[in-house]
């Protein structure tokens, strides 16, 4: 029996009409369908923010955690049950402000989860404040004279931390975004997907039109970038070149996709039954362990 996006939907999203996050939800659902995943084998773990409500509207197992902690929470789920497809998601505040420390370490660890960062360059659920990815000069209620800090370059940050999969998507192209997400889920290791997902209410600068003017298909990098570098997602040099140009030209597609040892791979190969599914019955083995502390 094939499932539809309707089977994967729960309730009516409370996002503003036109919000980029609708497209992310839809693209994720399409990716799940394309990959033929069973919905009970998916855990969608989110933090807090408009984007983190993704887990509310996706009808799979979900875990709506606290601000900034989707990644460590998702890592725990994966450790306990490697058989699940674990998808962590959240916004730019959640992932790059309060949760930035976790991001770097999850990348280093290369734990096999997919992380979708829904980047609208503004805090929306708190009604419009500057975010770690806001452009310099971006005027908000908390940056009345314009944002003074250099925005985080998500792609460069991931590559610098040793990422094995880095991609960049755009909410206006659901089909392409769905392909990117499917590739991310398929990838063994930590998959990072930065999605340019415009906020139509609180970000009047980085609008759909603005993004359309500033994005390009990554496979056309040769003509789009000054360096004329050829598309090659197996090349770190290529990925770095694309990432370094992020503030000038924003790519849509997969920058980097290589094989790197996955966290706990050796351990996984030794234990066919997930910790979450093991029966607890043989306590005699621990009695033996205690005996090591006893006098003969």
């Amino acid at each position: 029996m094939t499932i539809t996006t309707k089977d994967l939907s729960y309730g009516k999203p409370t996002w503003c009409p036109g919000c980029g996050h609708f497209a992310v939800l839809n693209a994720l659902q399409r990716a799940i369908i394309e990959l033929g995943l069973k919905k009970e084998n998916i855990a969608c773990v989110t933090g807090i923010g408009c984007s983190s409500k993704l887990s509310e509207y996706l009808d799979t197992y979900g875990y709506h955690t606290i601000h900034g902690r989707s990644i460590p929470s998702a890592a725990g789920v994966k450790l306990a049950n490697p058989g699940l497809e674990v998808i962590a998601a959240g916004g730019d505040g959640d992932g790059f402000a309060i949760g930035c420390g976790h991001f770097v370490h999850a990348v280093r660890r290369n734990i096999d989860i997919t992380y979708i960062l829904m980047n609208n360059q503004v805090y929306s659920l708190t009604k419009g404040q500057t975010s770690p990815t806001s452009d310099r000069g971006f005027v908000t209620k908390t940056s009345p004279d314009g944002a003074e800090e250099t925005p985080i370059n998500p792609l460069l940050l991931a590559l610098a931390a040793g990422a094995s999969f880095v991609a960049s998507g755009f909410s206006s192209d659901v089909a392409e975004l769905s392909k990117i997400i499917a590739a991310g889920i398929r990838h063994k290791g930590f998959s990072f997907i930065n999605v340019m997902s415009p906020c139509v209410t609180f970000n009047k600068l980085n609008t759909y039109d603005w993004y359309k003017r500033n994005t390009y298909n990554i496979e056309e990098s040769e003509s789009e970038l000054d360096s004329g570098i050829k598309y090659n997602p197996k090349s770190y040099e290529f990925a770095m070149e694309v990432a370094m140009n992020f503030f000038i030209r924003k790519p849509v597609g997969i920058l980097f996709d290589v094989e790197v040892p996955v966290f706990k791979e050796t351990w996984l190969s030794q234990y066919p039954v997930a910790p979450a599914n093991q029966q607890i019955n043989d306590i005699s083995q621990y009695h033996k362990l205690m005996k090591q502390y006893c006098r003969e």
Partner: protein
Amino acid sequence: MIKNSLNILIGGEAGDGILSTGEILCKIFFEMGYGLCTYKNFPSRIRGGHTAYSVRIADDFCAGRDPEIDILVVFDSESFEIHKNELKDGSVVFYDSSKIKVLGEKPDRKNIMYYAVPFAELASANFQKPMFKNTIAIGCIASMLNIDNKFIENGFAKSIKSKKGDDAFDMNLRACGIGANYYNDSLKGVKNELWPSPVLKNALMMTGNEAITLGALTAGCKIAVAYPISPATEIFESMCSLLPKYGGNVMQAEDEIAALCAAMGGGFAGARSMTSTSGPGISLMAEAIGLAGCAEVPVVIIDAQRPGPSTGLPTKTEQGDYYHSIFCSHGDIPRIVIIPGNLKQCFEFTVNAFNLADIYQCPVIVLSEQALSQNKFVAPEFDFSAVTIDRGKMIGDNELEGLNGGYLRYKFTDDGVSPRTIPGQKNGIYLCNGNEHCESGRISEDPLNRVKMMDKRQKKIESASKSKFLPQPEYFGNESAEYGVIMAGSNYETVKEAFSILDREGANVFKAMQITALMPFPAEEVSEFCSNLKKVIVIENNKTAQLSNIIKMNAPVHSKLRSILKYDGVALSAKEIALALKEVR
């Protein structure tokens, strides 16, 4: 009951090998069948600074610090200065005369024997390695106490041979012999034989942290995530080496927030999961503890307390997280907080912490303390036949199918506990949520639902108060006493021993109650205990009488309570308590 005990303290600089010397002495006396406990006093650094390791041997199980020293071994002048006032009449002092040319002013005690032994010189001359000075000191002590060589060999075999091989074993035995000969021939030392060993049967020797680890493994813990922190680090270290052998998995997190969140991810996924930490870590975990409460995720948090506030005294002991453990995080959170007081309870309470977490689907905090966590104790073997594993209400696949898609994760029930599913189960899909939610788990801001959901979660703690897995208060002392003592944690054993001192003096007019849970709190039991008493003394290791105030919050016994407080980073001893009790009365 302890009739005889002997306290050996070895002092020197951190890096002098003091800790390993203490460990070897433990092995030797354990081999002989004595009761034993240690008290480590070490600084929060790797090299330099005063370090002391005391090994207290007794003719029965013992579990408390002795502030008086029978045999003092010092490798530097500072150690003598720090500990000389702990000497008593008839004590013996060995000092390293290669480093201490003139011993400082001696304490005003009778018949103290001072033995000058050039430990470092003897070690360098015989082995070219100054570290052997420790083993030479062990030789002196062994000779004085007339310890049979077979115990020494066994002791070294279990501590050195297994870890460092035959050569190291042989050299250590030789060093020990050099010490013994020096004591006999050069010092013409007096033999001072120990009282006969009780040869304690079915005994084990381990630290509180080891007992907690064994408890967690036995409970079927499968996920351990932590961030290194004194004095809890050993728990996670042991989990890292042991858990994967039993099918579990571990992760060293980037901080304590991640540690608890990842452990909770494991709990949500269906594995018994834990983290271990100390004060600064559990402070960082506060928000996630609230999430576990709201989202009803089972997780066990071990807090080996150390003195705060802030970084405080990382390697010393305190009972200062009582407030934090029951109050931390915003909002009203269903949680369970239990406090083991000795090795046996470290094991049993940890096992039951996992049962309670699963049954009541909430965070369970186990409060240990440095003095209990990092010291070794000889104790009776743990009773595995009493271990029960209860995973609580977990709904099966067949039952789910019968619900026809109507599964509600947070269903309102009589006891507040809703049957749970785990990811992977068909027809059991739900959203685990830290936002206020309705029965399905999806966000709800409806005021009526909010009230019902809050009541439901809190109801679980009421239910937990009747659970057979919730550690119950223990009582001891003089049945017809007019005065009471209430304590928690490691003071349990210390007060017990203080009572035996008072018993011997015919001065015990006390009975005692050990608090083993702060949440749910045994309010009725405390009221009942205090009802016919004139005064009740609450003994605790913190500044602001946290336990006493928690009692006052729960039971109308305010006017009867008095406090004995200690917050210098050092555990209370039975002698101190006995003395203080006589005064308070």
